[in-house]
């Protein structure tokens, strides 16, 4: 036993794990200063009570959605700053120059970029969007399990805090975004970086899993009467597909990470190089989750594009049924392609051949969707707003990236391109154009519904063009570099290879992208400044789906009277063909969940648990776990978690807010 009481109380934690080199120190200072600045700001402006009552304890999915997006945007900026370092390093670290980062620090930054962009930016934006839009589109007043929904968000938040603490104390995992063993085993990564990575993803992943179940049930069970599945907006179909994948793929991630953590903390032999472990099993399992994960991110974005294309073309979506079938083909096929991430691991030609062919097949439903969007635009009365620009940018880049993907689905070709920059270019083209452009388009499209004003079009177009040019400049050279043999995660290369000019072009591309990001903030700021000039009303784009039938700002109970749905695009037909009223019948009492801080407490317990396992603070871990469990039991004892608005109160509020169309 360690006699040093202080030492054993704090586990492995000690001051020597504070950062030392200038870049890490500045990162750490940022991570300390930003929260301090926030606290000071909130105290000076006396907003603590407001923050707590209106936001932190809320169970309203619209507000939870906003919180997701705020976190995701903040993390996006961190991910972007990682990119700047990576691109700078690769542009100048040639020959005798070794750039600005040490090799191990470079690996940490690359790992941080991947982890944060996927888990905290792409997932955060997606869940934020789903929270805000899905209940409105299906005519529901809430999600199926409001408290669970808040818990999911706070778990996501706890995971985010945990991974960012690693900047201040300890280090980041230097093992890539998926931490392959044996490198990620204790023997080769003895510091806490990998543990931070594991427990951050474990906690955030638990949140995602619960969210997945929640929205799956919400869409299946909470649709308004009359909206059969085949009358749902396409966004909801995309979300339904995506959430099915979340529910059935995330358990695999949970188990894989737990097993890796057991290897590191309890000395088991799942993935170790010796002792009867099998590191290839890790690669197999992580991709059995990892490939569906890609489609988890992209399916809701596909849904966004479906909504946007049909709204701005003022036409009903072309090939609705084929879209639905395409989504479900993708859902099932995404579970049987995972081996294409490790063709080179040594499986036989029968195995590689099967997964290669499946990978090519999964491109077919995606192609169906793309053609459907184009046919929707065809002969439409186009209302050419920024979201359509993002769609067209997506369509072009996604097709280039997709064809590169089909190329790599051929195992012999993959043997040449595996782990090269060609792959990096491919998946960035898929994820950035698919997911991020989709989210950008969604923000321009739906923001007026929540804020009451539109974003400035001209600045939005500037941002789009900066993004498009920057993006192509940053990634087209990587295809070429991949062919020339440049592998991913290189912190240094020889001058004789002749790669430097292309890396410089890629770095300049990032400058353009930064310009695009800055332009987005300018656009947002300017639009808020001049918001009185472009007020949006409740239906700025001549919308088709139920959310546009609501008054802006949307009341907390969403629908005072439930809408009456008999067809697809019910709001469009109401406006253009007349006939039925969207909201009919008498006012009824509405049950609304009360605000509660308990979701936050559960996540805080999970955070304490994760943090103490990372640092081996064994006395604290059970306290964290117990906090969560006891809070769950306390919550289950509350027999009156809701308050009721009586029918007359609803009527009053409805008259005050302005009734639905």
């Amino acid at each position: 036993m360690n006699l040093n009481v202080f030492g054993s109380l704090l586990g492995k934690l000690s001051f020597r794990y504070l950062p030392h080199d200038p870049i890490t120190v500045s990162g750490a200072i940022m991570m300390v200063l930003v929260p301090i600045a926030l606290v000071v700001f909130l105290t000076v402006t006396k907003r603590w009570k407001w923050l707590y009552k209106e936001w932190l304890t809320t169970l309203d999915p619209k507000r939870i959605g906003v919180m997701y997006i705020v976190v995701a945007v903040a993390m996006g900026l961190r991910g972007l700053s990682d990119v700047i370092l990576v691109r700078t390093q690769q542009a100048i670290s040639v020959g005798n120059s070794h750039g600005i980062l040490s090799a191990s620090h470079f690996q940490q930054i690359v790992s941080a970029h991947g982890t944060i962009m996927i888990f905290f930016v792409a997932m955060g934006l997606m869940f934020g969007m789903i929270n805000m839009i899905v209940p409105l589109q299906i005519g529901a007043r809430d999600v199926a399990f409001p408290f669970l929904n808040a818990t999911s968000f706070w778990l996501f938040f706890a995971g985010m805090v945990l991974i960012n603490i690693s900047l201040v104390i300890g280090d980041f995992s230097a093992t890539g975004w998926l931490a392959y063993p044996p490198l990620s085993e204790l023997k080769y990564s003895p510091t806490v970086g990998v543990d931070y990575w594991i427990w951050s993803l474990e906690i955030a992943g638990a949140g995602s899993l619960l969210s997945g179940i929640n929205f799956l049930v919400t869409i299946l069970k909470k649709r308004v009467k009359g909206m059969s599945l085949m009358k749902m907006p396409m966004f909801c179909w995309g979300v339904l597909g995506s959430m099915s994948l979340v529910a059935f793929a995330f358990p695999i991630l949970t188990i894989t990470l737990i097993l890796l953590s057991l290897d590191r903390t309890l000395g088991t032999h799942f993935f170790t190089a010796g002792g009867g472990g099998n590191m290839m099993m890790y690669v197999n399992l992580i991709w059995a989750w990892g490939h569906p994960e890609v489609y988890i991110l992209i399916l809701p974005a596909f849904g966004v594009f479906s909504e946007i294309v049909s709204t701005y073309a003022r036409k009903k979506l072309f090939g609705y049924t084929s879209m639905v079938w395409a989504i479900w083909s993708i859902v099932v096929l995404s579970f049987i392609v995972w081996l294409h991430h490790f063709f080179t691991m040594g499986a036989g030609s029968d195995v590689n051949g099967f997964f290669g062919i499946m990978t090519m097949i999964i491109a077919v439903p995606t192609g169906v969707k793309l053609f459907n969007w184009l046919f929707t635009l065809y002969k439409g009365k186009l209302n050419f707003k920024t979201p359509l620009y993002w769609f067209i940018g997506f369509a072009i880049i996604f097709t280039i990236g997709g064809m590169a993907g089909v190329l790599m689905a051929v195992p012999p070709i993959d043997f040449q391109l595996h782990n090269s920059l060609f792959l990096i270019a491919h998946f960035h083209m898929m994820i950035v154009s698919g997911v991020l452009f989709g989210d950008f388009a969604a923000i321009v499209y739906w923001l007026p519904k929540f804020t009451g004003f539109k974003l400035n079009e001209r600045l939005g177009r500037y941002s789009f063009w900066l993004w498009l040019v920057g993006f192509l400049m940053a990634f087209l050279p990587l295809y070429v570099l991949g062919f020339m043999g440049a592998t991913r995660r290189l912190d240094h290369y020889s001058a004789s290879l002749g790669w430097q000019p292309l890396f410089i072009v890629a770095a300049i591309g990032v400058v353009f992208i930064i310009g695009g990001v800055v332009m987005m903030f300018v656009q947002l700021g300017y639009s808020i400044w001049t918001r009185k000039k472009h007020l949006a009303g409740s239906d700025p784009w001549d919308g088709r789906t139920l959310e546009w039938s609501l008054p802006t700002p949307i009341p907390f109970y969403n629908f005072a009277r439930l809408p009456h749905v008999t067809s697809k695009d019910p709001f469009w037909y109401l406006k253009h063909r007349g006939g039925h009223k969207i909201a009919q019948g008498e006012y009824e009492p509405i049950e609304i969940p009360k605000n509660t801080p308990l979701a936050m407490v559960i996540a805080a317990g999970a955070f304490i648990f994760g943090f103490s396992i990372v640092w081996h603070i064994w006395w604290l871990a059970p306290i964290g776990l117990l906090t969560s469990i006891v809070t769950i039991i306390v919550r289950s004892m509350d027999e009156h978690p809701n308050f009721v608005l009586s029918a007359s109160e609803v009527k009053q509020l409805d008259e005050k807010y302005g009734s639905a169309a």
Partner: protein
Amino acid sequence: MSSLTSENIDILVSQHQPENATLKNYVIGFVSSIVLTMSAYLLAYYHAGGRGLLFGLLAVLALIQFSVQLIFFLHVGKEFSPRLKLIVTLFMMLVVLIIVGGSLWIMYNLNHRVMPSTKQMVQYMNREDNL
């Protein structure tokens, strides 16, 4: 036509209940599970039959017991349309089949090709020595 009494309301409500837990169901489920468990146990304990056959038999018995418990204890397939519970269950089975089956296929293929057993390694090394 009878009027709606409180009993009738109970009936009406219970018809919206997807599960029909009855003593009969539980007894059938319990007794057949015991029988299936015991037969699997005895087969394995006495090593009855060839190994391949035995593996097959035990697997089949497990699957039968799985279905029995799914139907009689977990009431799968007894809900009204749309049979969401059944659909979700079948989807789960598909995913588990893919994950477990796929992993085994991939990993045995890999082991066979790149992870020789100690015995095989000794054989290879001996062969090298003899060359």
